[in-house]
């Protein structure tokens, strides 16, 4: 029973990690990453580490999420095609030469 719950949580962890990595919408990625932290906090609790669970929930799901959202607010929300994430720098010359 408890193993089943752990397995579900671990599966969720992998799914949220992959979703956050592959999402082109950075805002969505940040929110999913916040979910990742929440699942991680539950897992810490299941590993009998309540101190770590508290830290993960407050810092991972709370503080860093807001900081990331603020950073996105000041840059741009969508990741561009071709993996170039810089708005102001424009296309990276080195990369465009290689293509």
């Amino acid at each position: 029973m408890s193993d089943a719950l752990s397995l579900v949580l671990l599966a969720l962890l992998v799914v949220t990690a992959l979703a956050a990595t592959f999402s082109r919408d950075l805002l969505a990625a940040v929110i999913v990453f916040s979910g990742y932290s929440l699942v991680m906090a539950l897992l810490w609790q299941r590993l009998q580490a309540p101190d770590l669970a508290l830290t993960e929930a407050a810092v991972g799901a709370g503080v860093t999420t807001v900081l990331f959202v603020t950073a996105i607010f000041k840059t741009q929300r969508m990741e561009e095609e071709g993996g170039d994430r810089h708005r102001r720098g424009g296309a990276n010359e080195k990369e465009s030469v290689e293509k």
Partner: protein
Amino acid sequence: MKKVVSLCFIGALGVLLLMLVSSMPRMGDPGSPTNRRVVDRYLEKAEEETGTENVITGVILNYRGYDTMGEVTVIFTGLAAVLAVLGREKRGRVYAYPDRSPVRSSIIVRSAAGFLLPFIALFSLYTVLHGEISPGGGFQGGAVMAAGMFLFAAAFGLWKAGRTVPPRLRFAVEGAAPITFFLVGVAGLLGGGEFLAYMLPRVSAGLQPALRTWLTLLVEGGIGAGGAMIFISVLMALAREEVGGGQAA
């Protein structure tokens, strides 16, 4: 070609890491190195020796206080570096925040935040002050407080949050964590004691246990207050934009 090489490298690294995982001791294994040596001592003597009921707090702040002080210093130096890069508010300049639009957040958001905030603040204080008995402590409580202030900023606007926690207060309290830790450590040296012994000179033996608890609490409080303030400072520094006043930098 580049992609294939990267994939191979990452795959090899993953296999290597998984192999290492399989050689780790099982959780709770009585024969594992961590469980063989110091655990018994911690579990039996921590309350008496460190003055904290929560063994984790006793280990982090007392038995391994030296390491924790180093960690706290590293974390706060890192955050101070972030603040140095992002820049400080300067007198006589005008700042704007990206959310300063005429449209306020919806009444649902504002009511829910207003309802939750007192509880978050109370829970944060509880986590800091009760950290020596139950799970939690200064850093956790400080992070909860910072998250609460972030919620306030999200619901009522960064500008208002910046006025509720004015820069003067933040600048004064930000460094509290390493400073209180260091001062309590040095206090142990007074009268020929040890660094970070959580003791003061000329205190009778009967009062020592209570004093240890209070000094631990002081360190927790310093970490909590400093942590909360420096997180809020990072948010404000990240969000604000200079719009005028003063001379060009």
